[in-house]
Protein backbone atom coordinates (compact mmCIF):
# COMPACT_ATOMS: atom_id res chain seq x y z
CA UNK A 1 0.00 0.00 0.00
CA UNK A 2 2.81 2.35 0.93
CA UNK A 3 4.56 1.53 -2.33
CA UNK A 4 1.31 2.16 -4.16
CA UNK A 5 0.83 5.63 -2.65
CA UNK A 6 4.51 6.35 -3.14
CA UNK A 7 4.24 5.52 -6.83
CA UNK A 8 1.19 7.75 -7.17
CA UNK A 9 3.16 10.65 -5.68
CA UNK A 10 6.06 10.02 -8.03
CA UNK A 11 3.64 9.65 -10.91
CA UNK A 12 1.96 12.96 -10.13
CA UNK A 13 5.32 14.71 -10.14
CA UNK A 14 6.37 13.33 -13.52
CA UNK A 15 2.80 13.80 -14.72
CA UNK A 16 3.07 17.49 -13.90
CA UNK A 17 6.05 17.71 -16.24
CA UNK A 18 4.19 15.90 -19.02
CA UNK A 19 1.26 18.20 -18.37
CA UNK A 20 3.44 21.27 -18.84
CA UNK A 21 4.76 20.03 -22.16
CA UNK A 22 1.25 19.00 -23.20
CA UNK A 23 0.11 22.50 -22.28
CA UNK A 24 2.71 23.89 -24.67
CA UNK A 25 1.49 21.56 -27.42
CA UNK A 26 -2.13 22.52 -26.82
CA UNK A 27 -1.28 26.24 -26.85
CA UNK A 28 0.23 25.84 -30.30
CA UNK A 29 -2.51 23.56 -31.52
CA UNK A 30 -5.24 25.95 -30.46
CA UNK A 31 -3.53 28.88 -32.09
CA UNK A 32 -2.39 27.34 -35.36
CA UNK A 33 -3.85 23.79 -35.62
CA UNK A 34 -0.34 22.40 -35.69
CA UNK A 35 0.99 19.66 -33.48
CA UNK A 36 4.57 20.60 -32.83
CA UNK A 37 6.40 17.30 -32.54
CA UNK A 38 9.59 19.29 -32.04
CA UNK A 39 8.46 21.08 -28.88
CA UNK A 40 10.58 18.79 -26.74
CA UNK A 41 13.69 19.21 -28.89
CA UNK A 42 13.31 23.00 -28.87
CA UNK A 43 13.01 22.83 -25.10
CA UNK A 44 16.12 20.66 -24.85
CA UNK A 45 18.05 23.29 -26.77
CA UNK A 46 16.80 25.94 -24.32
CA UNK A 47 17.96 23.88 -21.36
CA UNK A 48 21.38 23.60 -23.00
CA UNK A 49 21.46 27.40 -23.19
CA UNK A 50 20.69 27.58 -19.45
CA UNK A 51 23.36 24.99 -18.72
CA UNK A 52 25.88 26.91 -20.79
CA UNK A 53 25.07 30.24 -19.12
CA UNK A 54 25.45 28.52 -15.78
CA UNK A 55 28.84 27.14 -16.87
CA UNK A 56 29.91 30.65 -17.79
CA UNK A 57 29.20 31.76 -14.22
CA UNK A 58 25.76 33.31 -14.54
CA UNK A 59 23.77 32.56 -11.35
CA UNK A 60 21.40 29.62 -11.88
CA UNK A 61 18.16 31.50 -11.22
CA UNK A 62 19.19 34.38 -13.48
CA UNK A 63 20.18 31.99 -16.28
CA UNK A 64 16.74 30.37 -16.10
CA UNK A 65 15.04 33.76 -16.45
CA UNK A 66 17.27 34.79 -19.36
CA UNK A 67 16.67 31.50 -21.14
CA UNK A 68 12.92 31.72 -20.60
CA UNK A 69 13.09 34.96 -22.57
CA UNK A 70 15.38 33.43 -25.20
CA UNK A 71 12.97 30.50 -25.58
CA UNK A 72 10.13 32.92 -26.17
CA UNK A 73 12.06 34.65 -28.93
CA UNK A 74 13.09 31.29 -30.41
CA UNK A 75 9.49 30.06 -30.54
CA UNK A 76 8.31 33.32 -32.08
CA UNK A 77 11.09 33.26 -34.67
CA UNK A 78 10.39 29.65 -35.63
CA UNK A 79 6.79 30.64 -36.27
CA UNK A 80 7.65 33.82 -38.13
CA UNK A 81 10.34 32.34 -40.37
CA UNK A 82 9.17 28.82 -41.04
CA UNK A 83 5.54 28.33 -40.12
CA UNK A 84 3.93 31.56 -41.29
CA UNK A 85 4.84 31.04 -44.98
CA UNK A 86 2.90 27.77 -45.01
CA UNK A 87 0.18 28.64 -42.52
CA UNK A 88 -3.02 26.85 -43.45
CA UNK A 89 -1.27 24.09 -45.39
CA UNK A 90 -2.33 20.48 -44.94
CA UNK A 91 -1.65 18.46 -41.78
CA UNK A 92 0.65 16.41 -43.91
CA UNK A 93 2.93 19.37 -44.69
CA UNK A 94 2.90 20.49 -41.08
CA UNK A 95 3.85 17.06 -39.75
CA UNK A 96 6.76 16.91 -42.16
CA UNK A 97 7.94 20.40 -41.17
CA UNK A 98 7.67 19.62 -37.46
CA UNK A 99 9.58 16.34 -37.88
CA UNK A 100 12.14 18.42 -39.75
CA UNK A 101 12.40 20.71 -36.71
CA UNK A 102 12.64 17.64 -34.52
CA UNK A 103 15.66 16.31 -36.39
CA UNK A 104 17.17 19.76 -36.88
CA UNK A 105 16.96 21.00 -33.29
CA UNK A 106 18.34 17.75 -31.95
CA UNK A 107 21.23 18.08 -34.41
CA UNK A 108 21.93 21.64 -33.26
CA UNK A 109 22.21 20.50 -29.64
CA UNK A 110 24.43 17.61 -30.74
CA UNK A 111 26.60 19.94 -32.79
CA UNK A 112 27.42 22.32 -29.98
CA UNK A 113 27.37 20.13 -26.90
CA UNK A 114 28.03 16.58 -28.12
CA UNK A 115 26.27 13.39 -27.15
CA UNK A 116 27.65 13.00 -23.60
CA UNK A 117 24.95 13.42 -20.95
CA UNK A 118 25.48 16.36 -18.61
CA UNK A 119 24.23 16.89 -15.09
CA UNK A 120 21.72 19.69 -14.74
CA UNK A 121 21.18 21.14 -11.25
CA UNK A 122 17.86 20.65 -9.50
CA UNK A 123 15.61 23.66 -9.30
CA UNK A 124 14.44 22.82 -5.78
CA UNK A 125 16.26 21.88 -2.54
CA UNK A 126 16.93 18.26 -1.64
CA UNK A 127 14.74 18.14 1.49
CA UNK A 128 12.55 15.06 1.97
CA UNK A 129 9.67 14.61 4.42
CA UNK A 130 8.15 11.27 5.37
CA UNK A 131 4.44 11.20 6.10
CA UNK A 132 2.96 7.83 7.02
CA UNK A 133 5.81 6.03 5.30
CA UNK A 134 5.40 7.96 2.06
CA UNK A 135 8.34 10.10 1.05
CA UNK A 136 7.51 13.59 -0.16
CA UNK A 137 10.50 15.33 -1.68
CA UNK A 138 10.76 19.08 -2.02
CA UNK A 139 11.59 18.49 -5.67
CA UNK A 140 8.31 16.69 -6.39
CA UNK A 141 6.30 19.29 -4.48
CA UNK A 142 8.17 22.04 -6.29
CA UNK A 143 7.34 20.49 -9.67
CA UNK A 144 3.66 20.30 -8.77
CA UNK A 145 3.74 23.88 -7.48
CA UNK A 146 5.38 25.01 -10.73
CA UNK A 147 2.58 23.42 -12.72
CA UNK A 148 0.01 25.23 -10.55
CA UNK A 149 1.76 28.59 -11.02
CA UNK A 150 2.08 27.99 -14.74
CA UNK A 151 -1.58 27.10 -15.09
CA UNK A 152 -2.75 30.03 -12.95
CA UNK A 153 -0.51 32.43 -14.87
CA UNK A 154 -1.66 31.24 -18.27
CA UNK A 155 -5.34 31.22 -17.39
CA UNK A 156 -5.03 34.72 -15.90
CA UNK A 157 -3.29 35.86 -19.05
CA UNK A 158 -5.99 34.43 -21.27
CA UNK A 159 -8.92 35.45 -19.12
CA UNK A 160 -8.09 38.86 -17.71
CA UNK A 161 -5.77 40.61 -20.12
CA UNK A 162 -6.50 42.31 -23.41
CA UNK A 163 -3.67 40.52 -25.12
CA UNK A 164 -4.96 37.18 -23.87
CA UNK A 165 -8.37 37.95 -25.27
CA UNK A 166 -6.80 38.90 -28.59
CA UNK A 167 -4.85 35.64 -28.62
CA UNK A 168 -7.98 33.64 -27.97
CA UNK A 169 -9.79 35.51 -30.69
CA UNK A 170 -6.99 34.89 -33.19
CA UNK A 171 -7.03 31.20 -32.40
CA UNK A 172 -10.79 30.91 -32.71
CA UNK A 173 -11.43 33.13 -35.74
CA UNK A 174 -8.36 33.66 -37.82
CA UNK A 175 -10.24 35.27 -40.72
CA UNK A 176 -12.58 37.53 -38.78
CA UNK A 177 -10.28 38.78 -36.01
CA UNK A 178 -8.42 41.24 -38.26
CA UNK A 179 -11.77 42.95 -38.89
CA UNK A 180 -11.86 44.13 -35.30
CA UNK A 181 -8.26 45.24 -35.43
CA UNK A 182 -6.47 42.26 -33.97
CA UNK A 183 -3.03 41.64 -35.50
CA UNK A 184 -3.63 37.91 -35.87
CA UNK A 185 -0.18 36.90 -36.99
CA UNK A 186 1.48 38.74 -34.13
CA UNK A 187 -0.86 36.96 -31.72
CA UNK A 188 -0.09 33.56 -33.24
CA UNK A 189 3.59 34.42 -32.95
CA UNK A 190 3.13 35.26 -29.28
CA UNK A 191 1.37 31.92 -28.88
CA UNK A 192 4.35 30.08 -30.31
CA UNK A 193 6.73 32.05 -28.11
CA UNK A 194 4.66 31.36 -25.04
CA UNK A 195 4.54 27.65 -25.85
CA UNK A 196 8.31 27.54 -26.25
CA UNK A 197 8.72 29.10 -22.80
CA UNK A 198 6.28 26.63 -21.23
CA UNK A 199 8.13 23.80 -22.97
CA UNK A 200 11.41 25.10 -21.56
CA UNK A 201 9.95 25.01 -18.04
CA UNK A 202 8.94 21.37 -18.56
CA UNK A 203 12.37 20.43 -19.87
CA UNK A 204 14.19 22.28 -17.09
CA UNK A 205 12.10 20.38 -14.53
CA UNK A 206 12.85 16.98 -16.01
CA UNK A 207 16.50 17.57 -16.97
CA UNK A 208 17.96 16.83 -13.48
CA UNK A 209 16.32 13.38 -13.51
CA UNK A 210 17.06 12.40 -17.13
CA UNK A 211 20.45 14.12 -17.50
CA UNK A 212 20.86 16.63 -20.25
CA UNK A 213 21.51 15.04 -23.66
CA UNK A 214 20.29 15.89 -27.17
CA UNK A 215 17.65 13.12 -27.35
CA UNK A 216 16.50 13.77 -23.75
CA UNK A 217 12.94 14.74 -24.65
CA UNK A 218 12.22 12.17 -27.36
CA UNK A 219 10.13 9.90 -25.19
CA UNK A 220 8.77 12.78 -23.10
CA UNK A 221 7.12 14.10 -26.25
CA UNK A 222 5.19 10.83 -26.52
CA UNK A 223 3.93 11.33 -22.96
CA UNK A 224 2.89 14.88 -23.79
CA UNK A 225 1.16 13.80 -27.00
CA UNK A 226 -0.69 11.14 -25.02
CA UNK A 227 -1.61 13.68 -22.34
CA UNK A 228 -2.96 16.17 -24.85
CA UNK A 229 -4.84 13.47 -26.74
CA UNK A 230 -6.30 12.12 -23.52
CA UNK A 231 -7.40 15.54 -22.37
CA UNK A 232 -8.53 16.77 -25.75
CA UNK A 233 -6.47 18.95 -28.07
CA UNK A 234 -8.55 22.07 -27.62
CA UNK A 235 -8.64 21.93 -23.83
CA UNK A 236 -5.79 23.26 -21.63
CA UNK A 237 -7.53 21.84 -18.54
CA UNK A 238 -7.73 18.53 -20.31
CA UNK A 239 -4.02 18.52 -21.05
CA UNK A 240 -3.22 19.03 -17.37
CA UNK A 241 -5.56 16.27 -16.22
CA UNK A 242 -4.26 14.11 -19.06
CA UNK A 243 -0.66 14.73 -18.05
CA UNK A 244 -1.28 13.75 -14.46
CA UNK A 245 -3.20 10.62 -15.50
CA UNK A 246 -0.44 9.58 -17.88
CA UNK A 247 2.21 10.19 -15.20
CA UNK A 248 0.41 8.11 -12.58
CA UNK A 249 -0.42 5.33 -15.04
CA UNK A 250 3.20 5.18 -16.16
CA UNK A 251 4.55 5.06 -12.63
CA UNK A 252 2.09 2.36 -11.50
CA UNK A 253 2.57 0.20 -14.60
CA UNK A 254 6.36 0.44 -14.42
CA UNK A 255 6.30 -0.74 -10.79
CA UNK A 256 3.55 -3.31 -10.78
CA UNK A 257 3.51 -4.79 -14.28
CA UNK A 258 6.63 -6.92 -14.50
CA UNK A 259 6.95 -7.04 -18.29
CA UNK A 260 6.79 -3.26 -18.70
CA UNK A 261 9.40 -2.36 -16.10
CA UNK A 262 11.52 0.68 -16.81
CA UNK A 263 12.47 -0.29 -20.39
CA UNK A 264 8.99 -0.27 -21.86
CA UNK A 265 7.49 2.58 -19.86
CA UNK A 266 6.96 4.46 -23.09
CA UNK A 267 4.43 1.79 -24.05
CA UNK A 268 2.02 3.11 -21.41
CA UNK A 269 1.32 6.50 -23.01
CA UNK A 270 1.24 4.80 -26.39
CA UNK A 271 -1.44 2.36 -25.25
CA UNK A 272 -3.44 5.11 -23.53
CA UNK A 273 -3.29 7.20 -26.68
CA UNK A 274 -4.41 4.32 -28.90
CA UNK A 275 -7.31 3.45 -26.61
CA UNK A 276 -8.58 7.00 -26.25
CA UNK A 277 -8.32 7.58 -30.00
CA UNK A 278 -10.45 4.51 -30.60
CA UNK A 279 -13.05 5.16 -27.94
CA UNK A 280 -13.26 8.93 -27.73
CA UNK A 281 -11.13 10.59 -30.41
CA UNK A 282 -11.87 14.10 -29.19
CA UNK A 283 -10.40 13.32 -25.75
CA UNK A 284 -11.97 13.54 -22.31
CA UNK A 285 -12.43 17.31 -22.25
CA UNK A 286 -12.28 18.06 -25.95
CA UNK A 287 -15.15 19.07 -28.16
CA UNK A 288 -15.96 17.38 -31.43
CA UNK A 289 -15.29 19.51 -34.44
CA UNK A 290 -18.44 19.91 -36.47
CA UNK A 291 -17.82 20.33 -40.15
CA UNK A 292 -20.45 21.62 -42.49
CA UNK A 293 -20.11 19.99 -45.87
Amino acid at each position, binding site marked *: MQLFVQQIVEGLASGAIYASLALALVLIYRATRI*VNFAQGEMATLSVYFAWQLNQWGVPFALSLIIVAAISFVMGALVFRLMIRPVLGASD*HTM*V*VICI*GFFIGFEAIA*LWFWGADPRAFPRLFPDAVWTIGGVRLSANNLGILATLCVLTAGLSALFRFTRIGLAMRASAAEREKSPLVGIPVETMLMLGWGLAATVGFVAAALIAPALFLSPPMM*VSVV*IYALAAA*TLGGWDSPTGSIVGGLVVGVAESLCATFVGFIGTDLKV*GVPFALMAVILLLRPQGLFGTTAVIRV
Partner: protein
Amino acid sequence: MTQGSTEKRLRAAGFAAIGVCLLLVPAIFPDFLVYQFSIVLTYAIAILGLNLLMGFNGQISVAQGVFFAVGAYTTAIFMTRYSVNFLATLPIAVATSALLGLLVGIPALRWQGLPLAFITFGLAVLVPPLALKLESITKGATGISMTKPSPPSWFPGNQDTFLYLLCLAGVVLCVLIAFRLLRGDTGRALRATRDNGLIAESLGVNLAAVRLAAFTTSAGFAGFGGGLFAVINAYVSPESFQMTKSFDFLVGSIVGGITSISGALIGALFIVFLPDWSADMNIALSGLIYGGAMVLMMLVARDGVVGLLSSLTVKLRGALAASAARKTGPGNETIPDRPPERQFQT
Protein backbone atom coordinates in the same frame (compact mmCIF):
# COMPACT_ATOMS: atom_id res chain seq x y z
CA MET B 1 0.74 12.88 -81.41
CA THR B 2 -0.48 13.91 -78.01
CA GLN B 3 1.54 15.40 -75.23
CA GLY B 4 0.68 12.40 -73.08
CA SER B 5 2.49 9.89 -75.24
CA THR B 6 5.62 12.06 -75.49
CA GLU B 7 5.59 12.29 -71.75
CA LYS B 8 5.22 8.54 -71.47
CA ARG B 9 8.11 7.95 -73.81
CA LEU B 10 10.29 10.41 -71.90
CA ARG B 11 9.45 8.67 -68.65
CA ALA B 12 10.18 5.25 -70.08
CA ALA B 13 13.50 6.55 -71.40
CA GLY B 14 14.27 7.99 -67.97
CA PHE B 15 13.57 4.70 -66.25
CA ALA B 16 15.63 2.80 -68.80
CA ALA B 17 18.55 5.18 -68.21
CA ILE B 18 18.28 4.72 -64.45
CA GLY B 19 18.12 0.95 -64.96
CA VAL B 20 21.25 0.91 -67.10
CA CYS B 21 23.13 3.06 -64.55
CA LEU B 22 22.09 0.69 -61.76
CA LEU B 23 23.19 -2.36 -63.78
CA LEU B 24 26.61 -0.80 -64.34
CA VAL B 25 27.24 -0.15 -60.63
CA PRO B 26 29.04 -3.47 -59.89
CA ALA B 27 31.26 -2.99 -62.94
CA ILE B 28 32.36 0.50 -61.95
CA PHE B 29 32.57 0.66 -58.18
CA PRO B 30 34.70 -1.28 -55.67
CA ASP B 31 33.08 -4.04 -53.60
CA PHE B 32 32.44 -1.93 -50.54
CA LEU B 33 30.51 0.65 -52.51
CA VAL B 34 28.58 -2.11 -54.26
CA TYR B 35 27.54 -3.30 -50.82
CA GLN B 36 26.45 0.24 -49.96
CA PHE B 37 24.49 0.49 -53.17
CA SER B 38 22.72 -2.73 -52.20
CA ILE B 39 21.70 -1.03 -48.95
CA VAL B 40 20.48 1.93 -51.02
CA LEU B 41 18.26 -0.43 -53.03
CA THR B 42 16.71 -1.99 -49.93
CA TYR B 43 15.99 1.48 -48.53
CA ALA B 44 14.55 2.52 -51.87
CA ILE B 45 12.00 -0.29 -51.63
CA ALA B 46 10.88 0.88 -48.18
CA ILE B 47 10.69 4.49 -49.37
CA LEU B 48 8.72 3.44 -52.43
CA GLY B 49 6.21 1.84 -50.07
CA LEU B 50 6.08 5.05 -48.05
CA ASN B 51 5.48 7.07 -51.23
CA LEU B 52 2.58 4.83 -52.17
CA LEU B 53 1.06 5.38 -48.75
CA MET B 54 1.87 9.01 -48.10
CA GLY B 55 2.30 10.53 -51.53
CA PHE B 56 -0.39 8.73 -53.46
CA ASN B 57 -2.84 7.82 -50.73
CA GLY B 58 -2.33 10.75 -48.34
CA GLN B 59 -1.94 8.77 -45.13
CA ILE B 60 0.77 10.08 -42.83
CA SER B 61 3.12 7.47 -41.46
CA VAL B 62 6.25 8.04 -39.44
CA ALA B 63 6.79 4.35 -38.76
CA GLN B 64 8.14 2.88 -42.00
CA GLY B 65 11.31 1.87 -40.14
CA VAL B 66 9.22 -0.35 -37.87
CA PHE B 67 7.89 -2.42 -40.75
CA PHE B 68 11.37 -2.52 -42.23
CA ALA B 69 12.70 -3.87 -38.94
CA VAL B 70 9.96 -6.48 -38.72
CA GLY B 71 10.81 -7.71 -42.21
CA ALA B 72 14.52 -7.85 -41.39
CA TYR B 73 13.96 -9.75 -38.16
CA THR B 74 11.56 -12.17 -39.82
CA THR B 75 14.12 -13.05 -42.47
CA ALA B 76 16.89 -13.34 -39.89
CA ILE B 77 14.87 -15.58 -37.60
CA PHE B 78 13.69 -17.89 -40.37
CA MET B 79 17.19 -18.14 -41.83
CA THR B 80 18.90 -18.99 -38.56
CA ARG B 81 16.35 -20.78 -36.45
CA TYR B 82 14.51 -22.74 -39.12
CA SER B 83 17.30 -22.81 -41.74
CA VAL B 84 14.97 -21.66 -44.47
CA ASN B 85 16.57 -20.69 -47.77
CA PHE B 86 17.08 -16.93 -47.87
CA LEU B 87 14.92 -16.48 -50.95
CA ALA B 88 12.07 -18.33 -49.30
CA THR B 89 12.26 -16.10 -46.23
CA LEU B 90 11.50 -12.97 -48.25
CA PRO B 91 7.82 -13.79 -48.90
CA ILE B 92 7.50 -14.62 -45.19
CA ALA B 93 9.02 -11.24 -44.33
CA VAL B 94 6.60 -9.49 -46.66
CA ALA B 95 3.66 -11.38 -45.20
CA THR B 96 4.64 -10.65 -41.60
CA SER B 97 5.12 -6.96 -42.19
CA ALA B 98 1.97 -6.71 -44.24
CA LEU B 99 0.05 -8.45 -41.48
CA LEU B 100 1.39 -5.98 -38.95
CA GLY B 101 0.51 -3.20 -41.38
CA LEU B 102 -3.01 -4.55 -41.56
CA LEU B 103 -3.23 -4.66 -37.76
CA VAL B 104 -2.11 -1.02 -37.52
CA GLY B 105 -4.11 -0.07 -40.59
CA ILE B 106 -7.48 -1.19 -39.23
CA PRO B 107 -7.57 1.19 -36.27
CA ALA B 108 -5.79 3.75 -38.47
CA LEU B 109 -9.02 4.05 -40.44
CA ARG B 110 -10.31 5.99 -37.47
CA TRP B 111 -7.09 7.88 -37.02
CA GLN B 112 -6.75 9.65 -40.36
CA GLY B 113 -4.68 12.81 -40.29
CA LEU B 114 -2.89 13.93 -37.16
CA PRO B 115 -3.85 11.01 -34.88
CA LEU B 116 -2.24 8.60 -37.33
CA ALA B 117 0.91 10.70 -37.12
CA PHE B 118 0.91 10.41 -33.30
CA ILE B 119 0.35 6.69 -33.35
CA THR B 120 2.99 5.93 -35.94
CA PHE B 121 5.38 8.30 -34.16
CA GLY B 122 4.72 6.38 -30.94
CA LEU B 123 5.26 3.10 -32.75
CA ALA B 124 8.59 4.33 -34.08
CA VAL B 125 9.73 5.22 -30.55
CA LEU B 126 8.30 2.12 -28.91
CA VAL B 127 9.55 -0.65 -31.19
CA PRO B 128 13.34 -0.38 -30.67
CA PRO B 129 13.13 -0.94 -26.88
CA LEU B 130 10.57 -3.67 -27.54
CA ALA B 131 13.04 -5.45 -29.83
CA LEU B 132 15.59 -5.27 -27.03
CA LYS B 133 13.11 -6.59 -24.51
CA LEU B 134 11.82 -9.58 -26.50
CA GLU B 135 15.12 -11.35 -26.07
CA SER B 136 13.80 -14.85 -26.64
CA ILE B 137 12.81 -13.90 -30.18
CA THR B 138 15.28 -11.20 -31.18
CA LYS B 139 18.33 -12.19 -29.08
CA GLY B 140 18.27 -8.68 -27.60
CA ALA B 141 21.29 -6.44 -27.96
CA THR B 142 23.53 -9.23 -29.32
CA GLY B 143 21.46 -9.37 -32.47
CA ILE B 144 21.27 -12.23 -34.95
CA SER B 145 24.14 -13.11 -37.28
CA MET B 146 23.60 -15.03 -40.48
CA THR B 147 25.86 -16.37 -43.20
CA LYS B 148 25.74 -14.36 -46.40
CA PRO B 149 24.38 -16.54 -49.20
CA SER B 150 27.06 -17.32 -51.79
CA PRO B 151 26.34 -16.95 -55.48
CA PRO B 152 25.45 -20.13 -57.39
CA SER B 153 28.28 -21.74 -59.35
CA TRP B 154 27.09 -20.49 -62.76
CA PHE B 155 27.24 -16.86 -61.57
CA PRO B 156 30.27 -15.04 -63.04
CA GLY B 157 30.72 -12.29 -60.41
CA ASN B 158 31.55 -12.26 -56.73
CA GLN B 159 29.28 -12.35 -53.70
CA ASP B 160 28.71 -8.60 -53.42
CA THR B 161 27.75 -8.35 -57.07
CA PHE B 162 25.37 -11.27 -56.67
CA LEU B 163 23.64 -9.74 -53.69
CA TYR B 164 23.51 -6.38 -55.41
CA LEU B 165 21.83 -7.84 -58.47
CA LEU B 166 19.43 -9.69 -56.19
CA CYS B 167 18.42 -6.37 -54.61
CA LEU B 168 18.15 -4.79 -58.03
CA ALA B 169 15.78 -7.54 -59.11
CA GLY B 170 13.77 -6.82 -55.96
CA VAL B 171 13.60 -3.13 -56.82
CA VAL B 172 12.49 -3.86 -60.38
CA LEU B 173 9.77 -6.14 -59.08
CA CYS B 174 8.57 -3.49 -56.64
CA VAL B 175 8.65 -0.72 -59.23
CA LEU B 176 6.56 -2.87 -61.57
CA ILE B 177 4.07 -3.54 -58.79
CA ALA B 178 3.95 0.16 -57.96
CA PHE B 179 3.34 1.04 -61.62
CA ARG B 180 0.56 -1.48 -61.82
CA LEU B 181 -1.03 -0.15 -58.65
CA LEU B 182 -0.85 3.46 -59.76
CA ARG B 183 -2.33 2.82 -63.17
CA GLY B 184 -5.98 2.64 -64.02
CA ASP B 185 -8.76 2.33 -61.49
CA THR B 186 -6.61 1.31 -58.55
CA GLY B 187 -4.41 4.34 -59.01
CA ARG B 188 -7.34 6.67 -59.47
CA ALA B 189 -9.00 5.29 -56.35
CA LEU B 190 -5.78 5.76 -54.37
CA ARG B 191 -5.38 9.36 -55.49
CA ALA B 192 -9.04 10.22 -55.19
CA THR B 193 -9.02 9.01 -51.59
CA ARG B 194 -6.10 11.32 -50.92
CA ASP B 195 -7.47 14.38 -52.70
CA ASN B 196 -11.03 14.31 -51.46
CA GLY B 197 -12.34 11.34 -49.55
CA LEU B 198 -15.88 12.59 -49.59
CA ILE B 199 -16.11 12.90 -53.35
CA ALA B 200 -14.26 9.63 -53.84
CA GLU B 201 -16.74 7.87 -51.61
CA SER B 202 -19.71 9.34 -53.41
CA LEU B 203 -18.22 8.04 -56.67
CA GLY B 204 -18.20 4.54 -55.29
CA VAL B 205 -14.69 4.22 -53.89
CA ASN B 206 -14.62 2.10 -50.77
CA LEU B 207 -12.46 4.40 -48.63
CA ALA B 208 -11.80 1.90 -45.87
CA ALA B 209 -10.74 -0.83 -48.29
CA VAL B 210 -8.47 1.49 -50.27
CA ARG B 211 -6.79 2.93 -47.20
CA LEU B 212 -6.34 -0.47 -45.62
CA ALA B 213 -4.92 -1.90 -48.83
CA ALA B 214 -2.52 1.04 -49.13
CA PHE B 215 -1.33 0.64 -45.56
CA THR B 216 -0.86 -3.10 -45.92
CA THR B 217 0.95 -2.82 -49.24
CA SER B 218 3.22 -0.10 -47.95
CA ALA B 219 4.12 -2.21 -44.91
CA GLY B 220 4.69 -5.19 -47.20
CA PHE B 221 7.14 -3.16 -49.31
CA ALA B 222 8.99 -2.12 -46.17
CA GLY B 223 9.07 -5.75 -45.03
CA PHE B 224 10.53 -6.83 -48.36
CA GLY B 225 13.20 -4.13 -48.16
CA GLY B 226 13.94 -5.15 -44.59
CA GLY B 227 14.23 -8.83 -45.53
CA LEU B 228 16.71 -8.01 -48.30
CA PHE B 229 18.59 -5.76 -45.90
CA ALA B 230 18.97 -8.64 -43.44
CA VAL B 231 20.26 -10.90 -46.21
CA ILE B 232 22.92 -8.51 -47.52
CA ASN B 233 23.93 -7.23 -44.10
CA ALA B 234 24.01 -10.77 -42.62
CA TYR B 235 23.38 -9.25 -39.20
CA VAL B 236 20.41 -7.59 -37.50
CA SER B 237 20.28 -5.91 -34.09
CA PRO B 238 18.14 -3.21 -32.51
CA GLU B 239 21.05 -0.87 -33.21
CA SER B 240 20.22 -0.90 -36.95
CA PHE B 241 16.57 -0.06 -36.39
CA GLN B 242 16.50 2.91 -34.05
CA MET B 243 13.67 5.41 -34.23
CA THR B 244 15.87 7.48 -36.50
CA LYS B 245 15.51 4.84 -39.22
CA SER B 246 11.84 5.71 -39.53
CA PHE B 247 12.75 9.37 -39.76
CA ASP B 248 15.43 8.59 -42.34
CA PHE B 249 12.84 6.95 -44.58
CA LEU B 250 10.59 9.95 -44.19
CA VAL B 251 13.45 12.26 -45.10
CA GLY B 252 14.29 10.12 -48.12
CA SER B 253 10.70 10.13 -49.26
CA ILE B 254 10.33 13.89 -48.93
CA VAL B 255 13.68 14.75 -50.50
CA GLY B 256 13.28 12.41 -53.45
CA GLY B 257 9.72 13.42 -54.11
CA ILE B 258 6.77 11.96 -52.34
CA THR B 259 4.64 11.43 -55.45
CA SER B 260 7.27 9.82 -57.59
CA ILE B 261 8.71 6.38 -58.11
CA SER B 262 12.23 7.31 -59.16
CA GLY B 263 12.29 9.73 -56.19
CA ALA B 264 12.49 6.72 -53.88
CA LEU B 265 15.90 5.87 -55.32
CA ILE B 266 17.15 9.45 -55.03
CA GLY B 267 15.91 9.62 -51.45
CA ALA B 268 17.62 6.34 -50.61
CA LEU B 269 20.91 7.53 -52.11
CA PHE B 270 20.56 10.70 -50.03
CA ILE B 271 20.02 8.93 -46.71
CA VAL B 272 22.77 6.36 -47.27
CA PHE B 273 25.57 8.55 -48.59
CA LEU B 274 24.94 11.89 -46.87
CA PRO B 275 25.60 10.63 -43.29
CA ASP B 276 28.76 8.83 -44.45
CA TRP B 277 30.07 11.88 -46.18
CA SER B 278 29.12 14.40 -43.51
CA ALA B 279 30.26 12.36 -40.49
CA ASP B 280 33.85 13.29 -41.35
CA MET B 281 33.07 16.92 -40.61
CA ASN B 282 30.61 16.67 -37.73
CA ILE B 283 28.32 13.90 -36.55
CA ALA B 284 25.50 16.40 -36.19
CA LEU B 285 25.80 17.71 -39.75
CA SER B 286 23.61 15.05 -41.37
CA GLY B 287 20.82 15.72 -38.87
CA LEU B 288 21.06 19.41 -39.55
CA ILE B 289 20.87 18.85 -43.30
CA TYR B 290 18.00 16.38 -42.90
CA GLY B 291 15.99 18.78 -40.78
CA GLY B 292 16.78 21.71 -43.03
CA ALA B 293 15.92 19.72 -46.13
CA MET B 294 12.54 18.67 -44.73
CA VAL B 295 11.55 22.22 -43.85
CA LEU B 296 12.97 23.70 -47.05
CA MET B 297 11.31 21.09 -49.25
CA MET B 298 7.95 21.91 -47.71
CA LEU B 299 8.51 25.64 -48.11
CA VAL B 300 9.75 25.63 -51.70
CA ALA B 301 9.56 22.21 -53.38
CA ARG B 302 6.84 19.93 -52.11
CA ASP B 303 7.50 17.36 -54.80
CA GLY B 304 11.12 16.88 -53.88
CA VAL B 305 14.04 16.61 -56.23
CA VAL B 306 12.06 14.75 -58.87
CA GLY B 307 9.33 17.39 -58.74
CA LEU B 308 11.92 20.12 -59.18
CA LEU B 309 13.49 18.34 -62.13
CA SER B 310 10.20 17.64 -63.85
CA SER B 311 8.94 21.20 -63.43
CA LEU B 312 12.26 22.37 -64.84
CA THR B 313 11.91 20.14 -67.89
CA VAL B 314 8.31 21.28 -68.34
CA LYS B 315 9.45 24.91 -68.24
CA LEU B 316 12.31 24.17 -70.61
CA ARG B 317 10.07 22.37 -73.06
CA GLY B 318 7.47 25.09 -72.75
CA ALA B 319 10.07 27.70 -73.59
CA LEU B 320 11.31 25.66 -76.53
CA ALA B 321 7.83 25.07 -77.84
CA ALA B 322 6.92 28.74 -77.45
CA SER B 323 9.99 29.92 -79.31
CA ALA B 324 9.46 27.34 -82.05
CA ALA B 325 5.79 27.70 -82.86
CA ARG B 326 3.89 29.22 -79.86
CA LYS B 327 0.87 27.21 -80.86
CA THR B 328 0.01 25.72 -77.48
CA GLY B 329 -3.37 27.18 -76.66
CA PRO B 330 -5.89 26.55 -73.94
CA GLY B 331 -7.59 23.17 -73.78
CA ASN B 332 -4.32 21.37 -74.20
CA GLU B 333 -3.65 20.71 -70.54
CA THR B 334 -3.12 17.26 -69.16
CA ILE B 335 -5.40 16.05 -66.43
CA PRO B 336 -3.85 17.07 -63.11
CA ASP B 337 -2.18 14.16 -61.47
CA ARG B 338 -1.53 15.99 -58.22
CA PRO B 339 -3.36 18.44 -56.02
CA PRO B 340 -3.90 21.69 -57.89
CA GLU B 341 -1.70 23.89 -55.69
CA ARG B 342 1.42 22.58 -57.43
CA GLN B 343 -0.01 22.24 -60.89
CA PHE B 344 0.14 25.78 -62.23
CA GLN B 345 2.97 26.08 -64.66
CA THR B 346 3.68 28.89 -67.03
